[in-house]
């Protein structure tokens, strides 16, 4: 199988969209936080917690969508802790974010060990199945890629669309963007910077957790350690790559997923026999760094990102 064959196969394009889905959820989550002025380094841990929470809820007998809701709530809870510590108390967003990542990861592992003390192979749940879109799925290449996905993938795209609409077309989005650019503009108009920022972190964290849940509930069907594997950090790079705009960030996620899907398939080709597999696995991380370097010159960073707002100082 060579490159052309890969690029022409429907399964490749289906994989691209599948791989992009969790990234889109989490990238939108991070983007919402950052647009409001808060860097959320809790993303990696919140994704782990979401992956576990969604999975364990279904494993305990809840319906799949309830699992998604549980994951989201767990993410929002961690987001609330992050928001309260970094917004009104103004603590370092770096330190708190890393702390949340450690806390959420450890909490998920701890809960997993308590829930399943004895198991060696992680048990499986019945995950989301690809939707049956009838004749649409039968369109060559495009059909399977676009219409053979699970409901969560369509939700991811919907979330991206909604993020864009809210940011640019609603009063709430206006307030959110202003909070990340010049919080005193928000305050002067009688709105609460604290409320908007905490709200953004809570909602954003909820989305990150759903991104994690995608891994256990749609991509794979069980929870295992290290499964998020840096995806959260990659999403932070994607926000920068997308210049803090939802549309560009989704394109970035798809591009990134494309390289990832390609890398997996190239491992099976003649190339894979010559080049160690670790080199292929490095590709996503190297690409993320490259993306950051490429965008460094024309970044449109929200002006108040990482700057706590204290009313007393003006």
């Amino acid at each position, binding site marked *: 199988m060579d490159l052309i064959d890969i690029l022409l196969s429907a399964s490749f394009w289906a994989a691209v969209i599948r791989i992009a889905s969790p990234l889109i959820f989490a990238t939108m989550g991070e983007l919402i936080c950052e647009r409001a002025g808060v860097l959320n380094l809790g993303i990696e841990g919140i994704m782990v917690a979401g992956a576990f929470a969604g999975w364990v809820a279904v494993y305990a007998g809840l319906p799949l969508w309830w699992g998604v809701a549980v994951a989201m709530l767990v993410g929002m809870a961690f987001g609330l802790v992050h928001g309260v510590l970094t917004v009104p108390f103004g603590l370092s967003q770096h330190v708190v974010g890393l702390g949340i990542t450690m806390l959420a990861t450890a909490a998920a*592992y701890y809960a997993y060990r308590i829930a399943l003390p004895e198991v060696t192979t992680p048990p499986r749940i019945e995950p989301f199945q690809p939707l049956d879109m009838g004749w649409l799925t039968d369109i060559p290449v495009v059909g399977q890629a676009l219409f053979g996905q699970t409901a969560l993938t369509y939700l991811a795209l919907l979330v991206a669309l909604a993020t864009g609409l809210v940011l640019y077309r609603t009063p709430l989005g206006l307030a959110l963007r202003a909070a990340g650019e010049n919080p005193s503009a928000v305050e002067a108009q009688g709105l609460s910077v604290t409320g908007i920022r905490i709200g953004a972190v809570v909602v954003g964290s909820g989305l990150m957790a759903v991104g994690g849940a995608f891994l256990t509930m749609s991509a794979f069907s069980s929870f295992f350690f290290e499964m998020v594997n*840096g995806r959260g950090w990659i999403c932070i790079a994607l926000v920068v790559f997308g210049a803090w705009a939802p549309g560009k960030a989704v394109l970035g996620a798809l591009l990134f997923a494309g390289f990832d899907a390609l890398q997996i398939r190239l491992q099976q080709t003649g190339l894979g026999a010559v080049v160690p597999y670790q080199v292929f696995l490095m590709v996503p991380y190297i690409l993320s760094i490259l993306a950051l370097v490429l965008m*460094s010159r024309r970044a449109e960073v929200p002006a108040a990102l990482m700057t706590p707002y204290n009313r007393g100082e003006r």
Partner: protein
Amino acid sequence: MRLEPIANPGLARSAGLPAAAIALTVVVASLLALLAGADPLATLGLILKGAAGSKFALLETLNRATPLIFTGLAVAVAFRAKLWNIGAEAQLYAGALLTVLVGTQLGLPGPVALPLMALAAILAGALTLLGPVLLKTRLGVDEVVTTLLLNFIMLLFISMLLEGPLKDPLGMGWPKSEALPRDARLPRIVDGLRLHWGFGLALICALGTWVIQTRTTLGYEIRATGLNLQGARFAGIPVNAVMVKTALISGGLAALAGFSEVAGLKGNLTLDISPGFGYTGIIVAMLAMLNPLGVVVSAIFVAGIFVGADSMSRAAEVPTYIADILLATALLFMVLAIMLTRFRVVRG
């Protein structure tokens, strides 16, 4: 609510709040134990006993503290300059790699090999952090993400070497390197006690870092750069050069953790020489409020929690991950407590 700086916090505030943070962490620990169906007091007792209940336990704790002192110092130095080095893990592995390469490939006698191994390790760690820092100072690329991603890249790189050119032919298929020769290992501090000179080196490094931070012009420059980049630049401090120097020191310190683990404890390079020492270094450094001498104390405390939790989980049905949760909560409570010693919350 608003925050107002406090001129004189007073003893009640500056001691009481951190104490309250520790107390809250203990409460969380108890709740976690209850959740696992264990008796909280007994669990805490077991952790304490496992960490410091015997000479063996204590030495184990100090052994575990050794790499944490190095990574804690690495983070403390970097964070002082607001250089967010989250890549101590990668620097540690880079150091470990060079330790093994120099120790096994050059065939030097021990007294020559050991210092050379340490130097090579320092260099490797420093270079590992240099890349992200140059990207930061030259192009403005955020170092948090680049150093984080480098951790993954470095582990894959080591994995590639351990399954390729560095693979021990006698390793029965395990991905591990050849062992260091006997005389290229760090000796024990006291004969018969399982504590190697890596710990001594860590203490020396802590002292050295403390001197740099408080007594040298470089330390002054680092602190000024971290507290106010714009002000430091205006005053004529070459902030980019300071960042690079900070990175070299920080990366070198983190790499010494790898050197010490390989040459002092493990004897060879595997993919599991560090269970996240690089990340835990962040907790160590923050609990020490970035004070290098405090890092020694907090590293021993953190190591004690880990060693104690390991030993406790063998006896009780409480998963060892309780240690990670405790430390993360301690970190969050502590940064809040420290902030509240310097600012008071006022209404309206």
